[in-house]
């Protein structure tokens, strides 16, 4: 039987984490995502599944608790919002360098600095280009509904373990704070057996000691390590995910993820009802990015527009994918303000005007 609930996106992440058999959550309060830890604490997860939930002294501490715990092969995660995620950048770079699986949830708010607590998508660059130092990449998932907030927890861990790489759910205050109907996944068992080829659970007689590190004092080794990472990142492309809405006959294409995609969905409906052939491509994975699909689409549509709650970040990846084939416009709001479907529609009519 389906288990249906009405939940906030943040609560869905928390409930899904318990059900995914997550072993540990380490976090620090920050609006608009504090409900994640609050919900967990209320659920007594140590009784429900034995999951550990700990309020750390800071985001720096939480990401490093995750770093430590991830080395043992267990499923561990943290969540925060923009300023807190910035504080985690060193730790994230370490985790990526050490090739550890874990899940980081960023419920983005408007920046820069303390900014506002209203929704934003201006941490795209930080997430996909690497806010930390060095040539690393995250797996970045962009939920556009409360359902996906729940579903991407399990998916995030699956990909994180598949590639031994940190995964991030890049959400925002809108998806985090809104409630929707959500079908809850069944309870998974917490994993009891660990892949002894790399985890640090105590060296036994039958294997060599395992070491978790991102350091190679010898630059040749670090070079090799980086090449290996780059190959891994390339291989991640096989897991690219996106949704196409009304694309088959579209003359013009909107590209949007997360909350902006939801807004654009309505814009597409409105435009279609006016007889305008607009489609929407919604990346579900931002890293890997659906560049190949966009390149393909660029042979068919007349122009594209990236719509995002930022001054123009994802649009660069759209342009890189399209490589000059068709014009790529950008439309966005900055600093925590949200565009309405009508705003997007009038921009669409303005920019794509030649087509109608």
């Amino acid at each position, binding site marked *: 039987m389906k288990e249906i609930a009405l939940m906030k996106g943040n609560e869905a992440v928390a409930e899904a984490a318990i059900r995914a058999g997550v*072993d*540990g959550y*380490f976090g620090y309060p920050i609006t608009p995502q504090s409900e994640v830890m609050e919900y967990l604490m209320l659920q007594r997860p140590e009784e429900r599944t034995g999951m*550990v939930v*700990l309020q*750390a*002294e*800071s985001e*720096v*501490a*939480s990401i*490093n*608790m*995750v*770093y*430590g*715990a*991830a*080395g*043992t092969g*267990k499923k*561990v995660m943290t969540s925060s919002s923009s300023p807190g995620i910035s504080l985690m950048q*060193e*730790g994230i770079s*370490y985790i990526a360098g*050490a090739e550890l699986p874990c899940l980081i949830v960023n419920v983005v708010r408007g920046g820069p600095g303390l900014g506002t607590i209203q929704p934003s998508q201006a941490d795209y660059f930080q997430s996909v280009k690497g806010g930390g130092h060095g040539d690393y990449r995250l797996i970045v998932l962009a939920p556009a509904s409360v359902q996906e907030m729940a579903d991407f927890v399990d998916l995030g861990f699956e990909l994180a373990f598949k590639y031994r790489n940190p995964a991030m759910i890049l959400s925002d205050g809108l998806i985090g704070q809104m409630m929707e109907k959500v079908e809850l996944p069944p309870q998974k068992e917490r994993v009891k057996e660990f892949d002894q080829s790399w*985890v*640090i*659970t*105590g*060296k*036994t*007689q039958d294997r060599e*000691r*395992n*070491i*978790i*590190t*991102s*350091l190679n*004092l010898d630059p040749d080794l670090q070079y090799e390590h980086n090449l290996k990472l780059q190959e891994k990142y390339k291989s991640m492309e096989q897991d690219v995910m996106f949704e196409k809405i009304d694309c088959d006959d579209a003359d013009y294409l909107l590209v949007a993820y997360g909350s902006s995609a939801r807004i654009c969905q309505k814009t597409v409906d409105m435009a279609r009802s006016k007889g305008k052939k607009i489609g929407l491509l919604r990346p579900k994975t931002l890293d890997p990015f659906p560049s190949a699909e966009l390149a393909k689409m660029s042979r068919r549509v007349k122009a594209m527009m990236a719509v995002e709650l930022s001054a123009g970040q994802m649009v660069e990846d759209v342009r890189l994918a399209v490589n000059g084939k068709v014009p790529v416009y950008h439309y966005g709001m900055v600093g925590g303000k949200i565009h309405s479907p009508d705003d997007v529609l009038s921009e669409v009519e303005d920019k794509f005007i030649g087509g109608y």
Partner: protein
Amino acid sequence: MDIKQIIKEENQVYRRTPLMTEATLSYCPGCGHGTIHRLIMEVVEEMGIQSDTIGIAPVGCAVIAYDFMDIDMSQAAHGRAPALATGIKRLWPEKYVFTYQGDGDLAAIGTAETIHACNRGENIAIFFVNNGIYGMTGGQMAPTTLEGMKSSTSPYGRNSETMGPPYKITEMVAQLPGTYYVARHAVHKPGPVRKAKKAIRQAFENQKLNKGVSLVEFVSNCNSGWKMTPNDSNIWMEENMFKFYPMGDIKVEGKLVNGD
């Protein structure tokens, strides 16, 4: 007696523990890091807990401690070893978890993580090597650098007025209810080495009790940073460091040891 008759398997009274790997230590000649490494591994060997021990290497000269200790280990970000240890121990409460940290790591950048792990009473061991300097990066001033002591960022001697006085974090965390055992030792002479080893053993044994943090500070030398020969640095250490950082137990079984 003929030496050949003495050097026989059955007469062996001391050998390097096999839990130290074959790798040559990366430390400077005479540096106490090596001795402390070995003592920790001797304790793990004697307790027979290799398969249940997880160590955390810091950022500092001991950054590749995992090359020398034959146990599962994780390298930590600078100062964050207590956070890593917390993450691990919370998920694996039955394992022995320890951190190995320098003074820059533990008492400067890692202050918050040290204090909060101690305050929460994480059931871990913290081995804290206080050599009064940042060894790894070339001898810069540490929080523990003595007043007047020269370093590459206090080339005219530490001036407490502008740089702050040396910071005794060990005494501070001993005040917290979350610490169960806190002691200060050294490894420059046979007597101190034997005492230091007992303290390390204690720190591991305590993890069976689940009563909080055991922190052992080792006042140690950094002859490269101090620009002295190893033996001179040990003498200088006794005469200067020990005055400010006195040896002995600070907290035992959760109770502060008063007087001396």
